[in-house]
Structure formats: C-alpha cells, structure tokens
C-alpha cells in the first residue's frame, strides 16, 4: 500500500497591505502598539476588489508548479478548501482545473471549512492516496475573508488577512512497518453562531434588512451579510477543546510531548497561541509562530507556517511535526507527520 508525503508547499499573499498604522488611523482609540501586543500581527494582505479566492489559488498553485515539484498535468485530484468561493455553483475547484491546465481526467472538489481546513484536507488527501484513488493530490487553501469584513469592525479587521496556499501530496512506497498518519477530529455545531456570516445564503437571503449596518457595544459596525466573531467564545472553545485534542492525538500515536519536534497550530493570534502553549507546557523553541506580516489567513496559516519553518531551518527533514487546526464551525482536527511523510513508523 502507498503512503502520502508532502512534496512542496507554495503560498501567495495579495499585494494590498493593511498595517497597524492604517488601523490606528481608522480606529484612533486603538494604538499600533496595543494591536501588536494583543494579536502579534503588524500587517495583513488584502485582496483587491474583484480579486477572488480562486485568483489567489491560481497564484499559489503556479508558484508551486514553478518550483519544479510537479506539472499541472501531473495532478490527479484537486482539493480546494474555501469559504469565500466564486459562485454558489459551479464548484470553484472545477473552474481551477481549466485555469491551471490540469487534465480533464482529474478529480476536483471544494470543501467548506475554515481554520481547521488544512488538517482535514491532509486527511482527505491521505485517504485518496492510500486507497489508490490518486497518486498526486493538490490541496489548495484559499480565502478572502476581507470581503466579509466591514471596514469599521476592528474585532475582525485587525486579525484576518487574505491568502492562498498550495500543497502537493504524492504517493510514496510504504516503508516497512509504516502506518498512515494518525488523525483526530472534532466538531461542535453549538458554536456555529460565534463565528458566522449570518445572511446572504438561503437561511437568510440578502435583502434590505440584512444589509442594514448596526453598531455593537464596542462601536464595531457590521451588517448581517458580514463576518461576526465572538472572540471571547472562540477563545473559551479553544481552551476547552485543543489541549484535549492534542492529548487524544498523542495517546493515539502512543507518544508524549517530548517525542514531538515541532508544533504548528493554526495561527489565530499570538496572544491566544501563547496562552495555549503555556497551558499545555509546550516548549517555546518547539512552537511555531508565523503571523506577524500576514495575520490570521484562516485555512492557510498552517501551510504558510510550515513553509516558513522549512525556509528558516526550524523544520528539518525527519522531524516529527504536530499540526492542529481549529475554528469556525466549531471544527477542529490534528495530525502528526514525519516531515515530509504523512506517516509515522509504527516502531517509532
């Protein structure tokens, strides 16, 4: 049986940038220093009007192809994770087949997840490869949350940045005694209302009422067609679920924290990450943080952090890496890989 390995990661950030100085101009009650100390973010990249998730996806995929890792015709299956698609239908991944120059004999689908999406995408890709349905899977995460965000809503505008990342996964021969990478997942629909765009689809179709802007107690402005986040609830959810999720994965793999070389969590904001890290007693030198110049890019934070850790030398061949994604849904998941292979030797 074949196993799955990550062959290459590339990412793309749109050209537009919103700095903390820009935000201080828009929200005089907040200082640049306060924004940085509370989020760890200095700037975010924002897609231009008319620049869609699919456009970012094309850029990221073309960078991956330009690296020489693979030709578009070598892709058997495209998985696109996005919550800001081009259309209700058709599937954005199908339009990408044509734009990227992939074979018409390739499979393609979208899946709608946010900050947990990369881990779920790796799980799906591993399933496709291990079951022999595909040899080369292109997993693309692409998001333009900025299009859901009101300019006067600092609760989300400070955090989120637009981005796309492309990850190539390929079948590799099974090493003796190797097992597919372990995954743990979690879902709790009770949290749906705490990170949501309430209107615009069919539960609440767009209309004069849903487009009306209102101001909340903190002075943040938004309509029901825009992104609402209850930050305190999301934080409480991560404190409740993520330590348990990490422990479940370690137990499943019969490992301890000391056996893991690098932890790459969804880069939500640095304050939350630091609190989680300390709560779980994870050593700072094994904990990846990369969001200063791109913000929270939703499903792309983990591949961006992996790519940067690779380039900085923090992530080395053969290291055991834990990936943990969590957020909107609520949805969460975690996996372990022995870089770059999505597998752990049973004897390890």
């Amino acid at each position, binding site marked *: 049986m074949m196993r799955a390995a990550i062959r290459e990661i590339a990412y793309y950030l749109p050209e537009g940038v919103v700095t903390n100085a820009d935000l201080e101009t828009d929200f005089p009650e907040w200082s640049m220093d*306060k924004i940085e100390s*509370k989020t760890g973010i200095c700037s975010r990249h924002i897609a231009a009007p008319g620049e869609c998730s699919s456009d970012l996806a094309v850029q990221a995929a073309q960078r991956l192809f330009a690296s020489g890792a693979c030709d578009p015709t070598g892709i058997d299956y495209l998985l696109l994770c996005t919550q800001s698609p081009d259309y209700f239908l058709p599937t954005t991944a199908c339009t990408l087949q044509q734009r990227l120059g992939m074979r018409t004999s390739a499979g393609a689908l979208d899946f709608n997840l946010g900050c947990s999406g990369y881990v779920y995408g790796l799980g799906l890709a591993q399933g496709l490869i291990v079951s022999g349905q595909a040899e080369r899977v292109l997993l693309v995460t692409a998001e333009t949350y900025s299009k859901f965000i009101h300019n006067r809503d600092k*609760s989300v505008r400070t955090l989120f940045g637009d981005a796309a990342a492309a990850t190539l996964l390929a079948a590799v021969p099974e090493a003796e005694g190797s097992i597919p990478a372990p995954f743990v997942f979690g879902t709790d629909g009770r949290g749906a209302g705490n990170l949501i765009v309430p209107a615009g689809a069919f539960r609440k179709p767009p209309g004069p009422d849903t487009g009306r802007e209102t101001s909340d107690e*903190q002075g943040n402005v938004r309509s029901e067609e825009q992104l609402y986040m*209850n*930050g*305190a*609830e999301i*934080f*409480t959810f991560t*404190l*409740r679920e993520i330590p348990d999720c990490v422990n479940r994965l370690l137990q499943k793999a019969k490992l301890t924290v000391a056996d893991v070389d690098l932890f790459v969590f969804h880069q939500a904001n640095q*304050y*939350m990450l630091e*609190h989680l890290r*300390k*709560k779980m007693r994870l050593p700072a030198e094994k904990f990846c943080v990369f969001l200063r110049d791109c913000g929270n890019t939703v499903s792309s934070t983990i591949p961006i952090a992996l790519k940067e850790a690779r380039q900085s030398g923090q992530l080395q061949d053969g290291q055991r890496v834990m990936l943990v994604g969590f957020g909107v849904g609520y949805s969460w998941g975690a996996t372990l890989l022995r870089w770059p292979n999505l597998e752990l030797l049973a004897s390890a």
Partner: protein
Amino acid sequence: MTTAIDRTEFFQRVEEVLSEPHALDGDTQLSTVEGWDSLAFVTFIAMVDDSYGAAVSVQELLACKTAEDLAALVERGRQ
C-alpha cells in the same frame, strides 16, 4: 475541598487585565470600568484559566454586574 479565592489578590489580577488603570473592589460596577471590553474578556478568561484553573462561560461573564460577581463566577468555575 474549598474553592474560595482571595479577594484582594483576585481584584488585583482583574485590574491587571484592564487596559486602563482602574482600582477595583467587590462593589465596583463593571459597567463603570473603562477598559472592561471584549479584549479584556479574553484576557480575563486567560487569567482565570491560568491563575485559578477556572473555566467560565462567556454568557455568565457578561451577566456579571460587579467585581464580586466575577469572583463568585470564578469560584463556581473551579468546581
């Protein structure tokens, strides 16, 4: 097992959570506290998790009217 927490120490910790300096005691009305905003809620939740091992729900947090209500909430959260 007692879950009572030291009030003086607790109110000091809550003061550190606020971005604006504000002296607190049990009778302080939270609605009059300048820095008691959504960012402070997140910092408060982190502080009580860290210092008291307490999990508090956001709904209950929002229902607190005085600083003493917060202390009682944390005590309940430790059980």
